[in-house]
């Protein structure tokens, strides 16, 4: 069963996933852009997979183009679960 989507849960998932890609935990805020964090398309593909595995929500190609910040990613997942 997928985990229930709440803003807090999704934020926790994203914040825990990014350091696996080499991002410093202390650099992560809702406002930080993926570009600043050196998170590229391959990292976002992995992040999408982690989110889909956890919440059953898929982020596809077009979505990835739209999300610029950590907050964008969290909000998009939360909106999909609404």
């Amino acid at each position, binding site marked *: 069963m997928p985990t229930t989507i709440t803003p807090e849960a999704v934020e926790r998932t994203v914040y825990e996933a990014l350091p*696996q*890609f*080499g991002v410093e935990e202390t650099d992560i805020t809702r406002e930080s852009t993926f570009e600043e964090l*050196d998170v590229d398309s*391959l990292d976002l*593909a*992995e992040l999408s*997979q982690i989110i*889909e*595995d956890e919440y059953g929500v898929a982020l596809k190609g077009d979505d990835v183009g739209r999300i610029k910040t950590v907050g964008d990613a969290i909000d998009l997942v939360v909106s999909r679960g609404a």
Partner: protein
Amino acid sequence: MRREVVVTGVGAVSPLGNGARTLYERWRAAQSGIQDGVGACSEFDPTDFLSVKEARRSDRFTQLAVVASDEALRDAGWDGELPYDSGRIGCVIGTGIGGIGTLESNHIQLREKGPKAVSPLAIPLLMGNAGSAAVSMRHGLRGQSFSTLSACAASAHAIGTAARMIQAGDADAVVTGGSEAALTPLATAAFGALDALSDLGISRPFDAERDGFVMGEGAAVLVLEDGARARERGATILARIAGYGASSDAYHLTAPEKDGGGAIEAMRAALADAGVDAGDIAYVNAHGTSTPLNDRAETTAIKKVIGSDVPVSSLKSAIGHLLGAAGAVEAVATILAMRDRVAPPTLNYEHPDEGLDLDYVPNEARTLDVNGGPVVALSNAFGFGGHNAVLCLEVA
């Protein structure tokens, strides 16, 4: 006149440790990097050299290649700044299998959790050209880059092809070599199924009791440059790629020709390309796998092309068979040995085999007697599929 191709830097990660000089010095001292029947790079920890992101973006075979390339570029005096237009520097890194560890772990995910659990990084990590891609990106090399894939001849083909690129004027320098990291359950089981591996886990090339090869992993990278340009920039010239010869057995998927036919042609081609005679060869770095068939066929080939007096030894006796990385690792060790005028030993050699009667430099390194002149040596690499690649190396 053909452009001269010189070696200005070398790097290696091997079962004998990190670093090209470590590899050569430990081999010369007859130390073995084989433990429990495997030649693993046990001193190698990728996080010592690579960031979390770099390590995550690369299979182990790529990590080994990148670290060997860092050393080779430093050795060439390239650190910080490329000496030529980046578009004139190529990159050719060979491998036998590529990222098989990545393939296996993702296949487990596929079987256990389904297709959605397969990593988006699977293909970019397992592809055979990942090593050359990573080395080219790491150092900003924008000339042509690709990988050679010819089993255990792959990195000798890489070096030969790189030399040709310089000779043809397509590049002024090429970062080249090979890498392999196939100490995985599938690769080990598969070579075992072929009955290619030593049951006892002992690598003893040319010995009567040899019973197969020992698997190893590692990488080596060489910086090749146009000789005139290298001299112009004041580079230290470690060696010259004097000649290159390659051929195919067109005979069998795994077995060498019994009379060494394809190997003979490749060795002769390397001599002709270098413009040297058999009598000029002071040392042969054999492919010497420790399999019954290879060592016999290779002995026949060496006798026919060079004769019976030349010292012949096999690095595989000390580190096992590094598959696609073997040709490059062996070329690097050979160059450093020639600079010291040393023929390094064939370890574990105890029982002469009938008909295998060359001078295998058993168990102890020996000084090469070259009367103060340059040393010319051959380094052989032969692969499943009947691929043969031979380098003729000269050290002033």
